[in-house]
């Protein structure tokens, strides 16, 4: 459930979980070091990143044309293409296709796009059961839980918890131990029977090649390949930003992705398929092209680079904020730094209004991104946009910012009530403070007077620490774990002028 206070409130809950923090620290630091090793062994890593960035930038410039080329290529290869403007449309299309195939059950390849649109719940409403086949996704599904990491969706769970889940839910899981091999074997037996008996699979896509109509799924377990090859019907739901123009572009992307994601030189299971092939694989193939806010992002010249993301999650692993809070605090299927710029653009600024502030702008994400998304700049851009809309919206501040109404985005307006009022007051106070500071700093005389007043105030606050700590707002927040700095006897400029006078 979304916390009314957004990221800061959800983060507070996550921070209170000491075990989660230890797990995340170990996990993120391990993968960080491995990624550095995997990327530093290539002499041309920086050129590869630049190549990746250029492919994405060029593609976005003519996304409409590439998508039409993709559609023609998929049709020519015997597939069917569906266009979905929003989540509801995509869910409806998939449900109809499943029903037309006469199925009541589908197996799924790990797909964040289908999590984004809430496909499993939408299918359940239609009486269709969707079973996740990625091990971590299966664990989350059995637990009724959501993903907390793009690549390691169950990063927040330990194996004892997984054993308990399997014991409760998997056929023959009753006497299971928490030995990882035994857990994997139990999942394998369960999933194999599903692979062989389920006629419809739903997948996402890492890439789709416009010129050939080839779809590419990158995964580690081989369960994805079972889904894309065994069932009669394969339905792929893909965000429109995943298209690349040429097959050769995969040569760059498939080097960037595994090293950034799992620190592997080569990805274990890379499945590519082009339409349908007689007597091999699915007999019908459907590609659902999903917009759901992406063309809104595309229209923003600064924000659009968020669409370049190849979902490697390197930015999550290096982020000092994600490392402390984990993914659930971002309240989105896209957590971490990339989530902080993607969610507000896809789901609307109102829904993600606190996310652009969930960063110290330390820049670690930008350095790690394999396609060089300048996440700090997009964060600044979105902060400015939220503040601007807050102003335009009659003084409601960032809290009341009207969401960019992305197609199919879940509206959360009205759920805030009292919180909204408080946020509005805080935003108005912040706006006034910022303006005052800018005006004061705008003239040297005003600035000098404010400096003097500031030093006096600071001295007073330091002499009254208990009162200061009890203050609401920034002072109380600062002094909860930090001392205020000492007020110096004179400012730098006072010293400078004195020195100038003396030397004359």
């Amino acid at each position, binding site marked *: 459930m979304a916390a009314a206070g957004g990221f800061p409130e959800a983060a507070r809950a996550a921070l209170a979980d000491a075990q989660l923090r230890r797990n995340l620290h170990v996990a993120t630091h391990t993968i960080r070091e491995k990624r550095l090793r995997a990327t530093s062994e290539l002499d041309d890593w920086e050129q590869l990143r630049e190549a990746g960035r250029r492919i994405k930038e060029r593609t976005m410039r003519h996304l409409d044309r590439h998508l039409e080329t993709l559609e023609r290529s998929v049709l020519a290869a015997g597939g069917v293409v569906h266009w979905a403007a929003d989540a509801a449309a995509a869910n409806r299309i998939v449900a109809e296709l499943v029903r037309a195939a006469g199925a009541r059950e589908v197996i799924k390849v790990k797909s964040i796009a289908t999590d984004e649109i809430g496909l499993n719940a939408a299918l359940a409403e239609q009486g269709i059961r969707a079973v996740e086949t990625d091990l971590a996704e299966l664990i989350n599904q059995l637990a009724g839980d959501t993903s907390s990491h793009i690549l390691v969706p169950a990063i927040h769970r330990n194996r004892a918890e997984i054993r308990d889940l399997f014991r409760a839910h998997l056929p023959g899981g009753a006497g299971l131990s928490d030995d990882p091999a035994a857990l994997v074997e139990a999942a394998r037996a369960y999933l194999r029977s599903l692979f062989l008996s389920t006629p419809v699979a739903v997948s996402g896509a890492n890439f789709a090649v416009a010129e050939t109509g080839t779809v590419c799924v990158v995964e580690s377990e081989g369960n994805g390949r079972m889904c894309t090859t065994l069932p009669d019907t394969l339905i792929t739901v893909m965000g429109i930003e995943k298209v690349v123009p040429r097959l050769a572009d995969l040569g760059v992307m498939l080097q960037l992705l595994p090293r950034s994601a799992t620190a592997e030189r080569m990805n274990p299971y890379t499945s590519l398929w082009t339409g349908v092939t007689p007597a091999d694989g699915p007999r019908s193939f459907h590609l659902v092209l999903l917009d759901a806010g992406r063309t809104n992002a595309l229209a923003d010249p600064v924000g659009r680079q968020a669409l370049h993301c190849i979902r490697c999650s390197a930015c999550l692993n290096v982020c000092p904020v994600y490392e402390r809070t984990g993914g659930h605090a971002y309240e989105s299927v896209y957590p971490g730094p990339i989530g902080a710029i993607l969610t507000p653009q896809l789901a609307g600024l109102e829904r993600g209004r606190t996310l652009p502030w969930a960063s110290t702008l*330390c820049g670690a994400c930008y350095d790690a991104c394999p396609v060089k998304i300048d996440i700090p700049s997009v964060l600044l851009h979105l902060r400015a946009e939220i503040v601007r809309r807050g102003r335009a919206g009659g003084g409601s501040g960032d809290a009341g910012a009207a969401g960019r109404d992305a197609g199919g985005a879940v509206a959360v307006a009205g759920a805030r009530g009292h919180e909204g009022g408080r946020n509005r007051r805080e935003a108005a106070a912040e706006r006034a403070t910022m303006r005052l500071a800018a005006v004061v700093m705008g003239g*040297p005389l005003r600035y000098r007077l404010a400096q003097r007043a500031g030093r006096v105030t600071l001295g007073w606050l330091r002499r009254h620490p208990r009162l200061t700590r009890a203050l609401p707002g920034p002072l109380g927040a600062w002094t909860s774990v930090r001392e205020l700095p000492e007020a110096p006897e004179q*400012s730098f400029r006072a010293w400078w002028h004195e020195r100038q006078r003396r030397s004359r």
Partner: protein
Amino acid sequence: MRIGLFVTCLGDTLFPEAGRATVEVLERLGHTVDFPAAQTCCGQMHLNSGYADDALRLVRGFVRAFGDGEGFDAIVAPSGSCVATVRHHYGVLASDSGDAGLQRAVSRLAPRVFELSEFLVGRLGVEDVGAYFPHRVVYHPSCHGLRVLRVGDAPLRLLRAVRGIELVELPEADSCCGFGGTFAVKNADVSAAMLADKVARVLESGAEVCTALDCSCLMHIGGGLARQRTGVRTVHLAEILASATGDR
């Protein structure tokens, strides 16, 4: 060289010793330092908080104070993040403003603004500034110096050349301290968790003094160190470099 000092509002108001030390080091190396008194704040806080139009006022103020930079061979500041704001964001703010005059001034001015350590090592080619500082010191690489300005090991080169210093390693050095301007109060709990880890690493290092390029990071880390009564002091890099007698 004729050097304009950009002391930063935080340095001017709360940490004047960093500015004084910057003047001292530059003068000791034979340069002339001037302090344009019209300077106030670079606008980083406004820009980072989403108040671009308020930041633009301060960009104009900065340009009024320093002109187009022609009056100086270089402008130097004891701060990585303020210099990063000028060098990396002023161009965008000026071009968004549509003011061609401002754009011109900023395009000339911004490339002349340097953080102290990158100026000393990268521009002047100096590593030994004749300092003496007989203390166990740990260096925290501030994020903007490290990843925006790319000062690299310039601060460490300067520190290694200081006589009497014992430089110790900071574990997980490149992790942000959790300040992030208004982040520290908007996301106070996450910031506190990051600070707690940074303070723990500083203590692990066994240092008596923690140094950095930015007064802001030092204010944050120092505030945490003081609250926990660790006895570890924070001292700006410029002060260590200015120290000739070791009594800072």
